[in-house]
């Protein structure tokens, strides 16, 4: 299948692979940095109170161990990050111009404020134990954590803008979107929610990894104090994060319903919309279902009546459009000011998109000819229809539908695992409180430890699924309604992308295996024997 792919498909695959690799390492650093900060703060106050007591040394050792795990991930996170940044130019050059005016500012600010903070203070955090004062070291560790999280802020704002463009106008002179309100870009509800949801998912992941690794020590009956104390901190931090994550997840679904109804329909496998729409809990999708046939979308399903309407519109009785409704239009929509109108069909949007493109072409033509009246008319035509600009690049309604099965299942995996982790943290808190875990029978105890260890791969699956929902669910759009992938790519022929894609894949896989082997090795050595 890959051999038949075009420039668009290959560029997408290359970006997806890089992003997914990047997202293996980054969320761990987001969460782990804060957990390390908490541990070092404990060390700092212990040593301040009691000097170099056993307790202070314990926290120092604990901090240093988790810092080592952080460092191994940090380097490879940086390596995959630079590829993502440069790929905007190498493989998505049209996109880079079309939105560079908006996307670039957060990226530059990220560089100035966040990247240097993270990399400079990371050097102190990792190498500076014997070189700087305890206070300076502690501040550096927290600045590393803040820097790591700030790095995520700006890129997420940029991503949110792509899902819900705000604070810009299209300038026909330069043929691109230009920012007119920075705060609208930064503080758009989609951006705020995405920020909260993604950062807390990283926090949760970090917490689960700390608990899982600690459980391995308990399973091996070694470094028990280190493991149990690490677990306690991670469980509290993880539970708080998971609760905020769930709350922002709900907000996220609400915003998707508002701004990306097609994504919501794909998440639910909803073809025909309805009032009191049910939320599908578990279901098997019917692979034969197309918009052109009347097959049932599910082979079986367990659904909660009305819950989707409540989730999407905060009202049981509201109508949630399905994929077919969005393509056929005609249902009622209420805009931000409370005005009611009929939704446009795919064909109508496409027509208007074509009018926008025609307006832009005529505008540029009139510029060359110096024809002011044509210019004014073309400008109006462009701006009146610009909201649908991207539809002009699509030929068939099917092209406006994201891959339903992938989005649907990824969404379920994310939500079910997210729910599991709330109970997981509560259980870990309960078991570690007063060391209850040690009074459990041996065979059960080991079983529990294994659950904790195996939760590590699960949290990665959960986290990656979240990104699949966000990114696959918004296809075909790089920028919602304005620029589909086919109008965003660079003119690089498939052969070249095959080559770079293969190099990336092999390189990242080798580095991932090396990284895991190094990490397992460090874990085996334990906190007392860091190499």
């Amino acid at each position, binding site marked *: 299948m890959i051999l038949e792919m075009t420039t668009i498909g290959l560029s997408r695959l290359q970006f997806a692979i890089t992003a997914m690799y990047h997202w293996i390492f980054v969320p761990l650093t987001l969460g782990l940095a804060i957990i390390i900060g908490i541990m070092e703060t404990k060390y700092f106050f212990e040593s301040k109170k009691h000097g170099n007591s056993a307790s202070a040394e314990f926290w120092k050792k604990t901090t240093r161990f988790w810092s080592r795990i952080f460092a*191994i991930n940090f*380097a*490879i996170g*940086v*390596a995959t990050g630079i*590829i993502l940044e*440069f790929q*905007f*130019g190498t493989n*998505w*050059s*049209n996109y*880079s*111009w*079309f939105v*560079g*005016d908006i*996307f*670039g*500012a957060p*990226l*530059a600010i990220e*560089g*100035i*404020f966040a*990247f*240097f903070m*993270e*990399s*400079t203070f990371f*050097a*102190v955090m990792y*190498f500076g134990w*014997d070189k700087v004062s305890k206070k300076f070291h502690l501040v*550096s560790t927290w600045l590393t954590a803040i820097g790591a999280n700030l790095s995520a802020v700006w890129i997420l704002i940029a991503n949110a803008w792509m899902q819900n463009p705000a604070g810009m106008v299209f300038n026909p002179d*330069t*043929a*691109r979107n*230009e*920012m007119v309100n920075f705060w609208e870009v930064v503080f758009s509800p989609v951006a705020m929610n995405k920020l909260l949801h993604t950062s807390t998912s990283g926090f949760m992941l970090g917490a689960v990894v700390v608990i899982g690794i600690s459980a391995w020590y308990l399973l091996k009956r070694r470094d028990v104090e280190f493991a149990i104390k690490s677990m306690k901190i991670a469980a509290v931090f993880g539970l708080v994060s998971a609760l905020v994550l769930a709350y922002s997840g709900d907000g996220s679904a609400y915003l998707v319903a508002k701004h990306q109804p097609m994504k919501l329909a794909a998440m639910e496998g909803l073809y025909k919309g309805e009032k009191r729409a049910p939320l599908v809990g578990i279901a098997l999708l019917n692979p034969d279902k197309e918009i052109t046939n009347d097959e049932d979308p599910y082979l079986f399903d367990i659904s909660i009546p009305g819950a989707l309407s409540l989730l999407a519109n905060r009202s049981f009785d509201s109508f949630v459009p399905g994929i077919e409704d969005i393509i056929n239009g005609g249902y009622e929509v209420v805009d931000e000011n409370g005005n009611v109108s009929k939704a446009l069909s795919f064909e109508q949007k496409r027509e208007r998109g074509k009018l926008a493109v*025609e307006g*832009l*072409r005529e505008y*540029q033509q009139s510029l060359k000819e110096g024809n002011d009246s044509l210019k004014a008319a073309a400008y109006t035509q462009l701006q009146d229809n610009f909201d649908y600009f991207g539809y002009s*690049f699509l030929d068939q309604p099917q092209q406006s539908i994201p891959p339903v099965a992938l989005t649907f299942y990824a969404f379920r995996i994310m939500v079910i695992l997210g729910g599991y982790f709330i109970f997981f943290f509560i259980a870990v808190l309960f078991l570690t409180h007063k060391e209850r875990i040690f009074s459990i029978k041996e065979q059960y105890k080991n079983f529990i430890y294994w659950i904790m260890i195996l939760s590590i791969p699960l949290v990665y699956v959960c986290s990656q699924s979240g990104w699949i929902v966000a990114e696959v669910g918004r296809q075909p759009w790089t920028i919602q309604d304005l620029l589909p992938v*086919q*109008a965003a790519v*660079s*003119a690089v022929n498939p052969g*070249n992308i095959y080559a*770079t894609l293969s190099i990336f894949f092999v*390189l990242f896989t080798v580095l991932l*295996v*090396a*990284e895991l*082997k190094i990490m*397992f*090795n*460090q874990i085996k050595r334990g906190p007392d024997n860091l*190499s």
Partner: protein
Amino acid sequence: MDTLYFLQHYWWALISLLGALLVFMMFVQGGETLIFGVAKTDVERERIIASLGHKWEITFTTLVTFGGAAFASFPLFYSTSFGGAYWLWMSILFLFVIQAVSFEFRNKAGNLLGKRSYDIFLFLNGSLGTFLLGVAVAMLFSGGSYNVDKINITNGASNVISTWTNPLMGLEAISVPFNLLLGLVLLFAARSLGLLFTINDMRSDSEIFANAIARCKKSLLMSGLLFVLLFVLFLVMLFLRTGYSVDPLVGTISPVKYKYLFNMMELVWPAIVLLVGVVLVLSGLSGAIFMKESSPLNKYAFYITGGGTVLAVWSLLICAAYNYTAYFPSLVSVQDSLTLFNSSSSKFTLTVMSFASLAIPFVLAYIVIVWRKMSHSKQSY
């Protein structure tokens, strides 16, 4: 003065400064070229890598920020150069990816590829990575084979705005002598700075590293000489070059003989900056090679040469675009060449970014503080 005009020039000056600082920070890359050859024993190799390992992230971050700032301020350059010279940039990226993991992974048990592989990665990054980056930067003067037509976005199937016409997608730049030359200049500049850094660093344990320091000095004589000679040759070739000038009123672009020489003469201040830079580089290098350790020129040779390099590179990058110069000429369609005026972000975005840029002195200050603190105490053996 028109605000947009000012902002375009302000941001070009800033990203040029970032590029110049990057060249200075590439002493890390230069240092990586020493691990095979100059370093003869494991202790020496470990020391060089450990010291560079504390600094590489700042160099890497400077590169990432350079990319981000270029995207933000001149997005058409980003899309045209990166999307066109695809293989050149991708090769550079691969060579930096393998660096990022190597410092951390090389000494760890279970690192899959073995220590030597990671050392080779570092060497490749330091040599080939530096060289290719120089080739890419040279294209700001020598240009590339591309077309730009913004209205292409309305063209249905063939809607790409910037298209590259050479099927080698950027690799052809390596065959241009001018580009090759700048690649070599950058390589020897980085190596000289790497040697100066290493000499400085090893001095705190001079009893252990006396032989290594002597070897570094010997190597510095050769590297420094090549750096200076090749740089002079590059300047001669640059000043004899035909550049492209943009008409500020109508935007048409036309060739001008000796454009870069005229830029220096007409703007004057970049010429002064260049001159000061060259004097500093020469003083630093000769201080390190010929003077006693107690003399300030020898003691601070790394910083003096580094400072000189920053000034020289900054001046040349300014010269590439200021004075109505097309900074990335198109070899196939001159009128499509990029200028500060047709490739920048909007006035609003540049203004927002300019407010953010006020934090740069603060960022530089904490980097310097951390650098000083981390450099004070000796490493243990």
